[in-house]
């Protein structure tokens, strides 16, 4: 059973709060509903992406700093 966290908006996906800080979540980390797993920057404004389920991060299909479309999978929970 896996769960996908999708981006509600298009933009650029960031896994870290700022370039010098560690990622919000690493693969293997436990995640609770409401936890921030990343940011999506759209037109120079930043939006927090929160997990909509409890689980453990299995993978991040999108690299830090890469463009994403609305609806694209940002993280997979197991």
């Amino acid at each position, binding site marked *: 059973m896996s769960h996908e966290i999708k981006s509600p908006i298009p*933009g650029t996906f960031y896994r870290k709060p700022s370039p010098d800080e560690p990622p919000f979540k690493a693969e293997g980390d436990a995640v609770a509903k409401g936890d921030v797993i990343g940011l999506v920057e759209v*037109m*120079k404004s930043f939006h927090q992406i929160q997990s909509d389920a409890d689980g453990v991060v299995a993978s991040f299909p999108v690299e830090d700093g890469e463009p994403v479309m609305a609806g694209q999978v940002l993280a997979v929970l197991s």
Partner: protein
Amino acid sequence: MDKLLIANRGEIAVRIIHAAQSLGLKTVQVYSAADAEMLAVKLADEAVEIGPPQAAKSYLNIDAILQAAKETGADAIHPGYGFLAENAGFAQAVADAGLIFVGPDAATIRLMGDKAAARQQASLAGVPTVPGSDGIITDMEAAAQIAEEIGFPVMIKAAAGGGGRGIRVAEDAGTFRALAAQAASEAKAAFGDGGIYIEKLIARARHVEVQVLGDGHDATHFWDRECSLQRRRQKVWEEGPSAALDEPTREALCGSAAALARKVGYKGAGTVEYLYDDTTGAFYFIEMNTRIQVEHPVTEMITGFDLVAEMIRIADGQKLRHGLTPRRGHAIEVRLNAEDPANNFMPFPGVVSGLEVPEGDGIRFDHMLYEGYAIPPFYDSLLGKLIVHGTSRADALDRLAGALAQLRIEGLATTKPLFEALLKAEDVQSNAVHTKWLEPWLETQDLTQGDEAA
């Protein structure tokens, strides 16, 4: 100059292509992978993809831009605004590649980009600067004395801070000592540097700026613009000339900007920004922007002068053609952004499903739109600028209302409802605004979209 490369995107790229074409130049538009469908790509004679969507890998990639110039045989580069426009390293790299940079030389960009150096140049040119400590103070006794001389209220800023962090306002000598000591110790703890500086607080300020143009030897001004309506320090509405200034003040302010441009041997189009103290009528230099600005059409409407064409001519080695330019009437520009004013100005990228551009005397719409265009989410939200020109400010306000009623951008949320609401605001009609006016006013408004959003 024969072929101009445009190192930018969006509405300003379109604007530069039109100016280049009017001068008989061929054009090369560079673009990121996300911008292949943008209007400027369609309008330019040639287009070169320079990298992925992220600006850092495309529009900020100096090597890729120079490579595109080399491949296409472009002999000049226009940087537009934003991106690399005020990057001295880029201006230098363009010159080192044997190409013409449409703008001032690298040394001028560096000089005016350094706040302290620019302030010093302004002082030397006789331009008033905001009274302050002229540097960092560590001695609290000296600080108190300087504050007395400047006059209260004063702002206390941490030298190592930035972005408004750690700013305190002291209303009188009594509170100053305590606040300055607090600011210094906090700065010491946060940044390892307890230095502070002090600046006069202007409680009710207007943002007034002066358009200048220089050819490296001589410089002149093209009058002023007022941009006091700002949200999160972003201008949303610009007009000119400022209705707040009387003529002697305007002449002194505009003359001081031209003097500064002459002092630094300015080449190209630039803007000297000021704070205008609405209470005392005094004006103070803030900074100089060494680029063409978003709101340059305001000046073009009141002077009848094509500033972008002129900066290209000057870059090509031609002399400034005009002394003092007469001005006529009043112009207003509003910025149509892909943002939803009803939802805290949330960005709204999407597809333009319908477009109706306003037309008529004194109406201009500089934009990057066409029906079916998908606005990419990777860059700023500016879609276009609606500019109107009237015989007076009241006439321009009327024309703005008429032009907004004609403008339809379907499929997106835009800032159009903001301007419809602003036109109804008494303070806007009577020009009783200042730089801190818009945000509190927005708190009292319900800016729902019309029937245009999808």
